[in-house]
């Protein structure tokens, strides 16, 4: 009985005659030499700083560094603020991901249905633009727009129309902060999110629509039975790819939140930021521990998404 061997093959199926690493380096010395600076760069920039994770096991205040073992993690798990931030991160990120993906799909479908190319291109350009504005600018605009003071456009307009008698403190009200945050995200990111869906839509075989026409399908039926199913694979891939990044939520929250809505807005990154940069004498050990925990959870999510990606599309994301 012959033993089955794993033989590396080329894309055409021909077996690759695998040589030893040293032989390969010797044969391709020039290329390896060119790669060397990149390798050094990656090690210095990406991997060397990772040595800092050891501080999560230390108390690190000013220049005093003392080994404390797992104490920082115990402190972290005992803090209500940490769990609030952790829970908020997951809730806000996942909701934002679902909402913005849905909005992008919706807009993509509408854009796909537009036959006036000039109008379509103009609209695309307009909805792409907010993506290129920095979050700081976006926050400044919306804070001014939604301000409770007499300079707030929304409140003053609603009052002048008689809809409101007193101004609403939109961004300082717990029940309103998240919906506004999601709306701002939709406004900023929907346009850019349509790029990948429009590419998918442009690849749908026109014969499917022609067949639907022959079957007497209405426009809405064609969208529902042809366009949407064709998009679903891409939607799932986009969701999976973005799910791996759900813990990386900082800038958009940081520029829009305030201490009156911490309960519903504080996320892990903003919590780490405040503990590190807004504390008179911070304990870098503790904040490193929180950061490390976040990285581990993020890593687990990436692996889960990789597994899901393999299951759905046959190949992983890493």
């Amino acid at each position, binding site marked *: 009985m012959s033993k089955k061997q794993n033989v590396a093959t080329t894309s055409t199926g021909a077996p690759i005659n695998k040589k030893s690493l040293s032989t390969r380096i010797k044969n391709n010395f020039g290329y390896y*030499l060119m790669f060397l600076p990149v390798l050094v760069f990656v090690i210095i920039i990406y991997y060397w700083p990772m040595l800092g994770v050891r501080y999560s096991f230390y108390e*690190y205040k000013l*220049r005093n560094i003392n080994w404390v073992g797992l104490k920082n993690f115990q402190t972290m798990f005992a803090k209500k603020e940490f769990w609030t931030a952790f829970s908020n991160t997951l809730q806000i990120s996942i909701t934002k991901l679902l909402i913005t993906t849905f909005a992008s799909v919706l807009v993509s479908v509408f854009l796909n249905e537009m036959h006036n190319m000039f109008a379509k291109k103009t609209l695309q350009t307009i909805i792409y633009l907010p993506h290129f504005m920095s979050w700081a600018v976006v926050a400044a605009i919306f804070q001014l727009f939604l301000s*409770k*003071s007499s300079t707030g456009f929304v409140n003053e307009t609603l009052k002048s129309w008689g809809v409101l008698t007193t101004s609403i403190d939109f961004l300082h009200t717990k029940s309103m902060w998240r919906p506004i945050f999601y709306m701002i995200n939709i406004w900023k990111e929907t346009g850019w999110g349509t790029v990948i869906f429009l590419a998918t839509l442009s690849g749908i075989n026109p014969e499917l629509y022609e067949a639907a026409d022959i079957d007497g399908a209405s426009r809405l039926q064609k969208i529902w039975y042809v366009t949407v199913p064709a998009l679903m694979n891409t939607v799932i891939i986009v969701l999976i790819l973005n799910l791996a990044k759900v813990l990386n939520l900082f800038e958009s929250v940081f520029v829009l939140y305030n201490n*009156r809505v911490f309960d519903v807005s504080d996320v892990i990154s903003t919590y780490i930021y*405040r503990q590190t940069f807004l504390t*008179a004498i911070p304990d870098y050990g503790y904040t490193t521990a929180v950061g490390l925990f976040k990285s581990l959870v993020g890593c687990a999510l990436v692996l889960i998404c990789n597994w899901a990606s393999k299951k759905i599309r046959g190949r992983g994301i890493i």
Partner: protein
Amino acid sequence: MKKKALSLLLSTAMVASLAACGSETAPAGTDTQTADNTTATQTEAPAATETAETAETPAAAEDFTLETLNIVVDGTLTATVENGQDAFKAQWEAAVSEKLGHPVTLNINQLDHSDYSGTVSRLLTTGQPGDPDYPDALIMSATMLRQYQTTGLLWDMADAYANAEFQSRVTLPSVNENMKDSQGHLYGFAPTYGNGCVTYVKKSWLDAAGMSIDDIKTFDDYYAMLKAFAEKESGTYGVIAAGYGKLDEAPYINYMPEFWQGAYPSFYQKDGVWVDGFQEQATVDALARLAQAYADGIIDPDTEEAGTKQAREKFFSNDQSTSEGVFTYWAGTWLRTLTDNMAKQEVDNDLGDERLVQLAPIQEIKDTWGGYINREAPVWVITDDQDGSSAREQAIFDALLETMLDGDKVQTLWTYGAEDVHWSTKAESFTTNPDDPDKKKDYEYADGEFHLKQSPNDPNTVWKKNHLDPVLVIAPLTNGFVDSDELVQAGNKFFTENCVDAPAAASCDTLTENEATLVELKTTLMNQAVTGEITPEDAIAQYQAEVGDIAQQIVDELNAQ
């Protein structure tokens, strides 16, 4: 072969460029290394860049030759890079080198004023004496001083202060004497007293409301005035500030003193006993007053999020239809600055220097604190390299702080800035706003007459001062250089006549450890109470429920000291 040679060449070039980048960024990029090696290297290589002669035994400054002085400053050094700092630095180096008999290079690291304490914390964490970024001396607020004075990072300058040459000219010795701890250690030196805030009212708004500043004597009068201002136009408000209370910086209540009255929402000594002022009835009452004013539309809602810059700019904005009539801010020089900014924005041009009037403390403030709060002074501290010798630190004291109050050349630099850049005694004439007939002003000075020049970065304004306020300084100039701005003098006189010293800032280990949590919670609760989300009583109850134990521990520690 050609390919190999080319690839070798490219690789060499890339590695060389990478190495060059690395060598440039190495000091900043080795944070973790530095921190890690701190303990081991502290005694091995203290102050490596400054001298090769670091002694291990106590020594006088003569044993140490200070060649470079690294200082870290906040925005109170008004001679910024854009505003003639190079000239200030050059003249300081020349004057101090002459005094010390050897050359000294001054490196100024001016940090962002709004994140000063955070950046200082990072500098002191990631560096050590001798590193290019590590400060030899730096400015700290009274609160920061209390936090750092027990860390061992600061040098006890009690002896240096006691033996300083300027002692014979100090007119306010209590400023620094009060800063000593119970063992007599002095970790910070205040060249000026603290100063504080007074309430400024727009004269035109008072006139429009048919009121006089002299009639505002009680909180009810004050409230009626704010109400009238809020009703002036549909978008106007009575008052704005940078927060309903500034709970992260002593004396906490100075931006809204009429509302806070006798309250002090932090730890302070009351009749010799430390208490947590945030839990007192006075704080509940203050929050209730603020909440009422907020509900009545008297306080600009922008107050909650505004920084000092935003609050100031809204107050003197050229759009007065969304502005406020009252703003409580720093006394003295700031009266001139606010007035000038109103002039720049063409607000109340007909009133000239009488645009703003100062409100005397209302009766409720007089009955409790006694007047506006004079904060604890910001200080200069010297970092201790912990090598067992005071030679380096004494040398820094001599070069920086001793000369800062020399009464003459160097003190003038710190007070008014660089000669012939910020001030001059040469005959000259100049005109500010030459193209605007309404604002145009001519200045003419004779030879030998001390005067301030046009600001380097804004020729339409006259320079005011540098780091030291000549009125607040504890040892006055002896060269007779006096800024004769009557408005500034009137502002300082008004504050001096109406102020009382702030309570001493509290300091203990548990407070330092929990301060950020306490400030964040108190600010949240204060904002919630003022905006009507919760009642003031609920705010205090929630505070007690969440951090009551910690607060009690802090009080106990403070009273045990």
